[in-house]
C-alpha cells in the first residue's frame, strides 16, 4: 500500500507548515461566524481540508484509518443530535413554543458572546460538516485499501 508512506519529503514539510494555520483559520471562521463573513459550513469545509491534506501527505495505516472512521462517525452523529437538542431547547425555554427559538440573551452587538445561540449553532454545524467531509475521504481510502488486499 502506497498510502502508508505518504508523499515525498517536500510535500511533508510544506504540510507541516500549512496545516496548523489552516486548521486555526477554519476554527476562526467558525467561531467568528456571527461577526464576520463565514460560518459553520465554510469553516467546517476548511477544517476538513486540513485533515485531508494531513492524511494525503503523511499517509496512514489501515487500522488507524478504521479508528478515525469510528471517531468521525461518532462526532458527526453527536453534532447533528446536538443541533436537534438546541432546537428543542429553544422550543422549551424560549417562552413562546417555537422551534429554534433564540432563548439566550442577544448581548452587545460585536462581542464574541452575543446574538444568543448563533455561535453555538455555528460551532455544532462546523464540527458536523468537518466530520462529514473527512468521513467521506476516509471511507474511500478504507475501501481502496480493502479492495487491494
Amino acid at each position, binding site marked *: 500500500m502506497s498510502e502508508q508512506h505518504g508523499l515525498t519529503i517536500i510535500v511533508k514539510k510544506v504540510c507541516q507548515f500549512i496545516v496548523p494555520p489552516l486548521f486555526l483559520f477554519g476554527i476562526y471562521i467558525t467561531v467568528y461566524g456571527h*461577526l*464576520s463573513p463565514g460560518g459553520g459550513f465554510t469553516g467546517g469545509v476548511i477544517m476538513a481540508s486540513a485533515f485531508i491534506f494531513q492524511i494525503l501527505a503523511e499517509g496512514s495505516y489501515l487500522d488507524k484509518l478504521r479508528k478515525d472512521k469510528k471517531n468521525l462517525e461518532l462526532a458527526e*452523529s453527536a453534532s*447533528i443530535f446536538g443541533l436537534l437538542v438546541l432546537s428543542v431547547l429553544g422550543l422549551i425555554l424560549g417562552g413562546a413554543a417555537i422551534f429554534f427559538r433564540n432563548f439566550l440573551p442577544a448581548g452587545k452587538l460585536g462581542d464574541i458572546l452575543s446574538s444568543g445561540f448563533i455561535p453555538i449553532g455555528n460551532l455544532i454545524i462546523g464540527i458536523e460538516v468537518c466530520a462529514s467531509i473527512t468521513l467521506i475521504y476516509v471511507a474511500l481510502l478504507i475501501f481502496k485499501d480493502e479492495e487491494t488486499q
Partner: protein
Amino acid sequence: MDIYLITMLLLMIVGSLYTLHAKDLMSAIISLGIVGFAVVISFLLLSAPDLAIVQVVVEIITLTITIAVITTVTYELEKKKIRISLAFYAATILMFAAVFYVIMMRLTNSLTPFGQHFLRMADTYIKAAYECGSANLVTGIILHFRAYDTLGEATVLVTAVLGVVTILRLHGKKKEN
C-alpha cells in the same frame, strides 16, 4: 381559487393517473414529467419563482437520468415504429403555443414593473436579523429564523455521508458469498 391553478391541479391528477395505468415504462416516466412541470407552473402562479427554478432543474435532471436508464434497460422493446399523423403535430404545436401565451400573460402581469424594486421581504429579513444581535446578517438569517432550513441542510449532508459509508463497506458484502 384561481382557474389556472385548478387547471394545473387537474393536469397533475390526470398525469399521475396515466402513470399508474401506462402500458410501458417510457410513457409512464413521460407522464410523470407532466406532474413535475405542472408543479413548476403552480409554483410560478403562486409567486414563488425561486422554488420554481429549483423544481425545473431537479425535474429535468431526474427525467433525463430516468429516461437514459430506461432506454438502456429496455432497448429492444422501444424499437417498434409509431406512425404519427400531421394533425397530431399541428394540435401539439397549437396547444403548446396557447399554454405558453396564457402563462406568459399571467406571469408578466403579476410581476412589478421593470426598475421598481420589491423589498417587502428584504426589509422584514433585515429587521429580524438585526433584532437577534448578530453583526453578520447572513448568519443572523440562516441561524435565527431560517434555522429549520439550516437543520435540513445539515441533515442532507449527514444522509449523503451515511449513503457513502453504507455503499463503501465490504464486511456486509463478503458474508453473502
